[in-house]
């Protein structure tokens, strides 16, 4: 059996909306394995994004425990958690979240820039990643000059540039047409196979289920089904 990369037990997360209390996660228990592409699916508001936010240390949780790469993220302070995230996690967002002021290559190099890697080195590495996602001729173009599919490929290159062990993708294909979505998923699958990383993909898009090793269904803050 593959090594466990992330292990969450009985995660509880509650939001307070005025006087109303919303239980976003109600005892989620889930392991993610090395080299696994796990898809998290379910209706809007079922807690998928909240769960990946908790798992990546972007959101605090009230109950349960969560270990990522053998570190208990509940006990880390904010600065340690931020540094840990910068070192080990790559993000791909639904809205790409590229910095509009930076060129494609500078966007890709951002995680390395944040880590303080020398500019020349980070640009070389970013160029490699752009080549890997098939954008070698567009390195100096800003996001506004790229199509949606191209922007998502830049975002993927950015998520992988620092060789993270864990990648979180939030609706990576929802802003893309079918063809671009398939290209992006093939790219992600290929890259995690090459790099040996694990990946959680939050999605509504059943056209990409075929790329998953496991599909976890969620509803009302609970896991309802795990399909292989």
């Amino acid at each position, binding site marked *: 059996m593959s090594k466990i990369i992330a292990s969450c037990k009985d995660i509880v997360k509650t939001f307070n909306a005025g006087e109303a209390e919303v239980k976003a996660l109600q005892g989620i228990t889930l392991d993610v394995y090395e080299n696994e592409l796990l898809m998290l699916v379910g209706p809007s508001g079922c807690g998928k994004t909240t769960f990946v*936010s908790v798992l990546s240390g972007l959101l605090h949780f009230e109950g349960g425990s969560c270990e990522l790469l053998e570190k208990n993220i509940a006990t880390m302070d904010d*600065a340690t958690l931020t540094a840990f995230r910068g070192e080990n996690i790559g993000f791909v967002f639904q809205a790409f979240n590229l*910095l509009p002021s930076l060129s494609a290559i500078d966007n890709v190099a951002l995680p390395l820039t944040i880590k303080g890697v020398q500019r020349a080195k980070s640009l070389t590495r970013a160029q490699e990643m752009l080549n890997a996602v098939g954008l070698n001729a567009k390195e100096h173009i800003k996001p506004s000059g790229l199509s949606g599919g191209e922007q998502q490929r830049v975002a993927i290159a950015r998520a992988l540039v620092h060789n993270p062990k864990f990648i979180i993708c939030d609706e990576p294909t929802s802003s893309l047409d079918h063809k671009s979505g398939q290209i992006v998923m093939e790219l992600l699958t290929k890259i995690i196979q090459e790099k040996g990383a694990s990946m959680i993909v939050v999605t509504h898009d059943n056209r990409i289920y075929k790329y998953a090793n496991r599909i976890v269904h969620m509803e009302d803050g609970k896991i309802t089904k795990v399909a292989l």
Partner: protein
Amino acid sequence: MFRVAIEMLLHDKTKYLGLLIGVAFTAFLVSFAMSYFAGFMTRGFALVSENPSAKVWVMDSAVSSAEATINMSNSSLGIVKGVKGVEYASPLYLGDMTARYANGHFQSFQAIGVDDATLSGAPKPANLLRIPNSVIIDSGGTDGKLQTPIHKKDMWAYNGSHLNAATRELRYGDEMLINSKRVVVAGVSHTIPRFPPRPLLYISTSNFKRLIPGEKRYITFIMVRPAKNISPQKLAKRISKETGLKAITSNAFKKETVMWYLINSEDVGDMVNMVVLAMLVGFGVTGVMLYMFTYENIKQYAVLKAMGASIKQLTDMIYTQVFIMAVVGSGIGVGISALFGEAISSASFPFRIMWFAPFIGFLGVFIVSITAAFISLRPIKTMESGIVFKL
């Protein structure tokens, strides 16, 4: 990350230009208003400035400005001259005189009586005051107040005043009446304009006494030049101690005069209020604009934080952006203020850039910018990075 911060700042050219204009306008407003105020105050001690050789000024102990004065006894000049270290002492007589022009109009002047022998304190060519009954006139920062009729038929007419007669500027040879006594304009000077503006009339002591005979005390100030072996400060102290009169250096007298205006002049008080109000409005607008700029970019900071950027890195980025805005904006603002001020001061508006005007312009903008950055850091520090999934 500095480069990223700068790219973020410069990315939206319209927003950047708007911010730059806002910051520059504030710096301009502050430095211009302060320079304008300094210009007025400089005019307030014009009498001291136009006598640079008088390093020490002696006056009645109750006097604290060049504006509100009371005269000393006529013997005080001799007493001051007797103090060791006084190389040279010359009296100055200040008074108000009302002159009747040839067409019947009248005008109040500040009369400045200078020593007959030395004519010290009179504008050049001071020798003109040696002509009998002569005066040198000066607009003193006023406009159109030194007028006499163009045509002879309108001058001293037997059938009364010709108040509506066409006029021209007074010049050499024109006559006026002061206390029903004839005086002749021997020259028109252009000394430092006064605050408040008023026409000036330079006159010799003997002429002064002839025109205002009833006064018992004529000496308003004694201008002193120290001997080479004593500093103005020391001599001022010595004169005060030995004569009981007030003696201060010219620089101290200028400062006292400014303070006197600040405390006693309602006009100056109103000006100060306006300057402060302009500064507050400018600073407020700048602060809000800078805050909004950072707040509008919060999404990008959230993304950076999610990717591992520490709070320190984000803080440094924001301070970098604000610092650049403050330096460039206030540099432009102060520069425009200097150029604009230079242009209007040549048109005889009061404008004087002193060290504190650009300094306060820069400092004010910096303080406001840093405060705005500090406040705008709060939502960045407290934001849950999880918002990146909702952006």
